[in-house]
């Protein structure tokens, strides 16, 4: 009897503690989840349960069977109803929270799945890209190899060209020199001693051999633009042009040519070749002069990233239909008896200008003088 009493009292006291603790924890959850009405309702329910249990414990301990609870059955019923109502209201009002949690979890899971799919997809794309990249790399390597091969071929063909130049200068000139020398010797020794035909034939032979020598020499000069080229230096065109005038002093004096020279720029180029370029153009201006003494104007203008040089003369001019042709090798517009020469000068000019990364062209009307233009990139100064 005594033991039962004791156990019941202790168990009820613990129940009271648990109920208060539950109420406090419920209130604490407000901070974490919001939903404060739900938690207050639930906490209220726990409090009421604890109060009711305390009253019944009080009854038990005081030994008064007609204490608060048992004597007033109505109070107990009210407590039970209030607790149930608060519990119901609390649970109902908190249920959206779990709904939300469930939804959030669902969304999270879906997001994770999506993410996994995306990762897989990206991985596959990356693998594809890698494959593509390695194919591209292979292609690039192949292209590089091909480029190296082309460069090698170019080097080889340049070497062959140089070899050709040497062959042309030595092996080809040697027999030609013999033909020319002995026909000349024949002419010297036997002119007038054979008949008129013989003199004429010898004349043609000498003329042909001499001309061929000149052609070979010109061809050599043309090929040397590439093979004997020097690297580019900053070159003051005023100095180059002064040298050109010195070189042509005799032709200038003989023709009575007047040369006007504007200030010229400094460009990156091969000094010797630039001099040859000016020299060929000015020599042409003197050679193809009209009835008047030649007047030659040399100038240069900046145009974008280039210098455009102009050599203007008052000579016989060039008909528009011939203006393209004159820059090709061995192209002539006149009879040899009118104007001598093999037709190499402008071809060399073109090769020199192109080696410097520029262009050469002419503006002219037949009988109205010509202006030769050429451009040289300004380079980095």
């Amino acid at each position, binding site marked *: 009897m005594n033991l039962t009493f004791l156990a019941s009292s202790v168990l009820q006291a613990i129940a009271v503690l648990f109920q208060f603790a539950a109420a406090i924890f419920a209130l604490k959850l407000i901070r974490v989840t919001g939903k404060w009405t739900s938690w207050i309702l639930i906490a209220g329910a726990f409090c009421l349960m604890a109060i009711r249990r305390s009253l019944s414990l009080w009854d038990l301990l005081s030994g008064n069977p007609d204490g608060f609870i048992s004597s007033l059955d109505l109070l107990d019923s009210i407590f039970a109803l209030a607790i149930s109502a608060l519990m119901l209201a609390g649970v109902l009002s908190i249920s959206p929270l779990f709904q939300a949690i469930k939804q959030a979890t669902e969304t999270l899971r879906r997001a994770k799945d999506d993410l996994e799919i995306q990762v897989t997809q990206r991985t596959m794309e990356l693998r594809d890209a890698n494959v593509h990249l390695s194919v591209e790399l292979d292609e690039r390597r192949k292209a590089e190899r091909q480029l190296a091969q082309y460069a090698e071929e170019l080097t080889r063909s340049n070497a062959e060209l140089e070899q050709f130049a*040497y062959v042309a*200068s*030595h092996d080809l*000139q*040697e027999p030609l*020199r*013999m033909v*020319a*020398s*002995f026909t*000349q*010797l024949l002419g*010297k020794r036997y002119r007038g001693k054979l008949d008129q035909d013989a003199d004429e034939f010898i004349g043609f032979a000498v003329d042909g051999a001499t001309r061929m*020598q000149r052609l070979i020499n010109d061809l050599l000069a043309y090929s040397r633009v590439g093979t004997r080229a020097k690297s580019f230096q900053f070159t003051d065109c005023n100095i180059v042009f002064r040298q050109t005038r010195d070189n042509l002093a005799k032709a200038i004096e003989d023709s009575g040519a007047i040369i006007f020279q504007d200030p010229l720029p400094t460009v990156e180029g091969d000094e010797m070749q630039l001099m040859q370029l000016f020299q060929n153009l000015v020599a042409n201006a003197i050679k193809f002069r009209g009835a008047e003494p030649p007047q030659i104007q040399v100038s240069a203008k900046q145009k974008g990233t280039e210098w455009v040089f102009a050599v203007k003369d008052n000579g016989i001019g060039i008909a528009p239909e011939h203006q393209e042709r004159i820059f090709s090798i061995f192209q002539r517009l006149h009879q040899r008896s009118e104007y001598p020469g093999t037709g190499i000068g402008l071809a060399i000019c073109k090769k020199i200008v192109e080696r410097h990364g520029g262009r050469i062209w002419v503006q002219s009307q037949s009988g109205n003088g010509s202006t030769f233009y050429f451009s040289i990139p300004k380079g980095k100064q």
Partner: protein
Amino acid sequence: MKGIPKAACRPIEILMVEDNPGDVRLTVEALKEAKVRNNFHTVEDGVEAMAYLRRQGPYAEAPRPDLVLLDLNLPKKNGREVLAEIKEDPELRRIPVVILTVSQAEQDILKSYNLHANCYITKPVDLDQFLEVVKSIENFWLTVVMLPPR
């Protein structure tokens, strides 16, 4: 002893090393008008040239030349090798060697002088100039300069 008194005692011996008979003939033609009495000898390649200079084989009786006209492009042994051998030989090195070639290549000129060529002449393309050059060689080397005694 002084240098050889020219023309006075004996003819000058000239050796031309040249594989082109045309050039040999042109040189002979030019030398026909020479003021100095000369004996003109020719060999056609570098091996023969060295045999001649060292008096070997058929050239045992050959006179020591006073002047060598040497082409650079020769069969068997080229002119550069001949020049080098002459200038390395204490017996032959004092013989003046005139390089007479068609080559205008800078490296040929430089190499020849480095090998102690006495002068370097490019064969002129024009006949009159060629004759003139041979006459200048003759005039300079056979009358102007003092050659070493043999």
